[in-house]
């Protein structure tokens, strides 16, 4: 049975449209709903690509003019009740000890908190995956405690290592593939959460809850060696 929901479809350009759904009476969070809607559309429509953000799904059609009616009816066949909510919390090991590019000391000065206070605040919360994107596999996690909220770096890095964990505004995030990045880095996880050869095996996706478990350098290395 299909769930009832109110949708708003906005045509942006000759090949792009955006879908927002009225979530007022829903227990499902936008980030999770849009992720599942995006996957649903991808499996139902040919010649499109999709992006799920916290507030919408964007669809780009490779063909012009785009098949807006087809996309609309695909949205209508989306079953909200197909979303299985997971309560499990995934534990992510993180090493806060000085890695080559850590910004944790600068963050500590900026916030007037000790490094240990930052670690304690960052590792004591449960976060939710809010969105995947920006660079390959990057996961936006929130909400970050406002006591350790810092702005993005003034000059973004061109190369951030795989597994680096950054913070910015009310989000923390994991750089799954490395690449450019503008978030101050405070730690690194030895686990690669992004299997590039299989996009369906994403371990982190919107709706999943996580927390960070502090590990030392030795444990970091031994987990890395296991791989």
């Amino acid at each position: 049975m299909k769930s009832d929901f109110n949708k708003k479809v906005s045509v942006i350009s000759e090949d792009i449209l955006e879908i927002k759904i009225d979530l007022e009476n829903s227990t499902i969070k936008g980030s999770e709903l849009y992720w599942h809607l995006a996957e649903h559309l991808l499996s139902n429509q040919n010649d499109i690509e999709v992006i799920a953000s916290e507030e919408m799904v964007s669809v780009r059609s490779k063909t012009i003019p785009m098949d807006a009616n087809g996309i609309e009816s695909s949205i209508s066949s989306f079953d909200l009740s197909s979303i299985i909510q997971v309560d499990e919390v995934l534990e992510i090991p993180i090493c806060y000890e000085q890695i080559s590019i850590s910004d944790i000391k600068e963050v500590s000065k900026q916030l007037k908190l000790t490094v240990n206070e930052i670690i304690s605040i960052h590792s004591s919360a449960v976060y939710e995956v809010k969105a995947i994107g920006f660079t390959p596999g990057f996961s936006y996690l929130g909400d970050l405690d406002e006591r350790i909220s810092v702005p993005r770096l003034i000059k973004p890095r061109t190369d951030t290592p795989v597994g680096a964990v950054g913070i910015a505004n009310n989000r923390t995030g994991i750089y799954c593939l490395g690449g450019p990045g503008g978030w101050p880095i405070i730690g690194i996880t030895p686990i690669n959460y992004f299997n590039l050869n299989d996009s369906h095996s994403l371990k982190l996706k919107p709706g999943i809850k996580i927390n960070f478990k502090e590990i030392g350098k030795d444990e970091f290395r031994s987990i890395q060696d296991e791989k």
Partner: protein
Amino acid sequence: MAIQFLKTGLQTTVQDLGRAGSRHIGIPQSGCFDYVSSMKANEILGKEINSPVLECTMTGPQFKVLKDIQACVSGARINQITIDGVKVEQNKVLSLKAGNIFTADVVQENLRFYIAFSKNIQATQFLDSVSTYLPGRLGGINGSKIENDQIIDFEEARQKNSSYQSSGKYPDDLLTSIIRVVKGPEFQLLNNGSSSLESHNFSVSNESNRMGIRTGGDRFSIDDQGLMKSKPIYPGTIQCSNGGQPIIMGADAQTLGGYPRILQVIKADRHLLGQLRPNDNFVFKLVSIPEAIDAWRTLKKANPFICEL
């Protein structure tokens, strides 16, 4: 073995038409920035339109031919292309013999040109594409730009009959002084709306790359507190920083962006973004969605080999 690079040029990478379809997991499209020019080079050689090519930026490479092969150069107008010192033309089938030295020097106007070959460049396949994505070190030759002494190998490729009919006029239509756009989702944050849009003059900043084209020159007046949640973006999406400076997203654009998306470059003009060169001047022209559809049809009519991507 087929060619060996003696000079690399400013930034020479292997590209095809990219990996559209994995944007939901943060994978940028990549691929030839000016894909119309790369498709043309492949078409002239009778190659599949998606075949890998060399994308050359500003200055071209010099390479030694190790085994006979055909090539074709399309895109930005190059000052001079030579084979063993003898001048040859763009948009023509060039027969390269073992021992020849091929040289493409600097572009006279625009920015990027493409070298297609009669055989397929061997490069790293990732998500059905060999396109190089430099920031993530994916695809291409070791995920990076071509280096000195690099040897590129080729494999046999299927040939088809070329249907390319040259219009006989040169240069190619790579006019970048007017970039046509439609309103973006956050257009309403611009304080003067569409009234003064077309009177703003922009220049291309030196800090531009395949991820994005930064602009200098005029600024928009925008009402943005910088607190927006990251929103979906594509190649051709124009974000505007709180300072009012537009940034046009390029072929390697990230998938989510935090600045208001004030405009979207229409599909018919997106390939031209790859030809905007630092210090070039341009203006935006606002068009309607039906006009954008017509513009794409017109482009396809003039270049029947273009495929949807």
